[in-house]
């Protein structure tokens, strides 16, 4: 979608919720459409690459598949747009334009967007996000991903949402009011951290095997688990040019479990911050969101660990890919018109 040049009053409005994630970005629109893309943006390295690829910019899997011909950017690595690197801001901009195209947004429409970003992004560089997004929308609000997910599920009181993403794990306490910074917490032990651990363990075990971080990430997405797993996890990896079977069962479990102590400890601390009268209720209202929530056994494992101190219920959002985007759309739709109008960009 082309950048908007101005914001004339238009009767045709679209409200969208966008989840700008480290690993994948999703959009839900008021016209019922929704879609997602891996958060990769790639520009052809030179005019030959551009001619071969036939596009000035590629996204998601398309970009990953052609990464050798591209200058590939994962703009929200570690949950923030990296300061001073304009390419990352530009990548976020392209990504937002692409997401809007995916849901059929038109330049002639007035677009009101709520964008969910990792909590760390929200704290660190709201303005950078705003700069990156505002060219495509008429009015914009930015919220944290776990808050958007909580809002979408109606979890506004006595609940903790834990969004296990790629770059960060975000915690958000919901207590019937707008969460402040104190109610939100971000740690860096998340999906990317698991990838690094798994990569290191596999390198130790199979030093002669030829694999990269992208392959390790794919292995994780296909086979991740915590606790126990039936059977072996075997993957094919080339060794001296020949594909060989590798058993990574133990490494997969250890890598995935490496994030648990930090998640459990932070959850405990957040529960302890709650009014003691409500701690029991909160304990039974813990919700996992984000890609990490899909790790087999994750919810049960956290639940068991926390149950040592009292009855605990940990559930997983039904639709982790769209939980934050749907929540952001719900916010966009509930937001009074006058609020949007106050935030209309100035020409």
């Amino acid at each position, binding site marked *: 979608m082309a950048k908007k040049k101005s914001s004339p009053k238009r009767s045709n409005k679209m409200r969208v919720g966008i989840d700008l994630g480290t690993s994948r970005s999703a959009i839900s629109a008021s016209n019922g459409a929704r879609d997602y893309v891996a958060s990769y943006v790639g520009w052809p390295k030179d005019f030959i690459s551009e001619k071969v690829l036939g596009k000035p910019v590629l996204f998601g899997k398309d970009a990953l598949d052609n990464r050798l011909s591209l200058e590939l950017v994962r703009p929200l690595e570690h949950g923030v747009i990296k300061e*001073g690197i304009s390419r990352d801001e530009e990548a976020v901009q392209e990504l937002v334009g692409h997401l809007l195209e995916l849901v059929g947004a038109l330049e002639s429409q007035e677009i009101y967007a709520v964008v969910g970003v990792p909590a760390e992004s929200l704290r660190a560089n709201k303005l950078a996000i705003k700069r990156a997004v505002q060219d495509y929308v008429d009015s914009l609000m930015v*919220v944290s991903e776990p808050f958007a997910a909580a809002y979408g599920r109606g979890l506004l009181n006595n609940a903790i949402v834990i969004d296990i993403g790629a770059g960060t794990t975000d915690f958000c306490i919901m207590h019937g009011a707008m969460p402040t910074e104190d109610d939100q917490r971000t740690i860096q032990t998340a999906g990317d951290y698991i990838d690094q651990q798994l990569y290191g363990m596999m390198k130790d075990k199979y030093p002669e095997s030829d694999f990269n971080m992208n392959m390790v990430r794919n292995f994780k997405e296909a086979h991740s688990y915590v606790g126990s797993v039936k059977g072996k996890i075997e993957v094919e990896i080339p060794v001296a040019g020949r594909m060989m079977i590798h058993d990574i069962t133990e490494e997969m479990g250890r890598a995935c479990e490496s994030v648990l102590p930090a998640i*459990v400890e932070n959850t405990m601390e957040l529960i*302890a911050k709650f009014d003691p009268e409500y701690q029991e209720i909160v304990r039974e209202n813990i919700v996992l969101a984000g890609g990490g929530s899909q790790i087999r056994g994750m919810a049960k494992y956290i639940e068991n660990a926390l149950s040592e101190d009292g009855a605990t219920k940990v559930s997983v959002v039904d639709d982790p890919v769209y939980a934050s985007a749907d929540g952001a759309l719900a916010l966009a739709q509930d*937001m009074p018109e006058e609020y949007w109008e106050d935030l209309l960009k100035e020409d």
Partner: protein
Amino acid sequence: MFKRSDKRDILKGIYEENLWVAGKGESRKAEQPAARSLDKRKLHPLSLLSATSVILIGGVFMFWLGSATRTTGELTAGMASERVANAGPGQSAQVSTSREAVLVPLNEQKPVVSAIDPTSLPKTLQKKLIDVDNLEDLAIPGLDAVDVDPANYQALAESDVPIAELFGLGVKTIVIDPGHGGKDPGAVGKLGVFEKDIALEIAKRLRDRLLSHGHYEVLMTRESDDTISLNDRVEYANANHADLFISIHINYFPSEQSFIETYYFGPTNDAKVASLAKLENADSHYEYGEFKDIIQKIGDTLKFQESRQLAHSVQSNLYGRMKKINKHASDHGIKSAPFVVLLGLDAPSILTEVSCFCNPAEEKRLKTAEYRENIAAFLEKGIVSYLNKNTSVGGKRNGEKEKLAKAQQ
């Protein structure tokens, strides 16, 4: 599920916050720390240590390689910076002069350093750039400026030789950070023991042990039950020019085992550096952002190398000795992670989870002074072993002379 008034308030809260971001409203009170956090990110990605090293790199590394093209009339400067130690709780301010000579590479044909907008760099580096502009008379004989090629930085960042070893960077000031404190108790054991208390107790014992060596200035981010933000801890360590930073924590994870693990500052975006390799022979075409990224990478490399060595030494000593007195000690090894408290630090830094509120038995052990003293002693062994292996006291590393001699051949 929720009251209508809750929802209205929440929507209004979001609106007001975004109004402020759009520059159309006033900041909520809760935004103050956020603004500081933003400054932090801008000001601290490069460390004093890495800034010093980066400036040294252009000159000394090429000098070492013996392949530099010397140019005349270029600026070489040594700076003596005054160090004012910010007094922590219960500590007196100390003043000492320091420290490494600083070589600033400039090139008339390719004014790399001056091409950077100084205001966009970290304050520590800004100071050096600004000072350098007026310090021709402080040039150090024998250290001429050299041609700065990004390929050289790149080579250095990827070198197997530890950068700190190359430049003889020593350890004088050790900052110990007892985790949590004040309103933030950290993990709480089943018997009601607070992580903040155990961490402080062990930290004090470790401080006393390190001070007894007589070589190091040992500072603590807190010496009592105070609430101190992560940012303040980082600022304190940086303001005091910490050479090492040790953050002490207790794990929480219900289990029979007592998990011991040590984290060190992890590498950032290696893919970015890989993509910059293509610039090796295109020294006049790099962009500011990319150049800045290389510098960042070198700073991170130095911190990464040293942090990893320190983490390895502390973890192996801690676990190796703990398992002799606690059969449930479980080695979770060293791990890299960009924790906030490690990320913003100038110095090599680790966060060590010295024990775990895993079960009441371990908690009982942690309540005894003897056990805490043992942990402090094991940490001391790890730190001193790292220091003995890699450095001599007072800024020169073992093997420094040999390396310089080799470099000059």
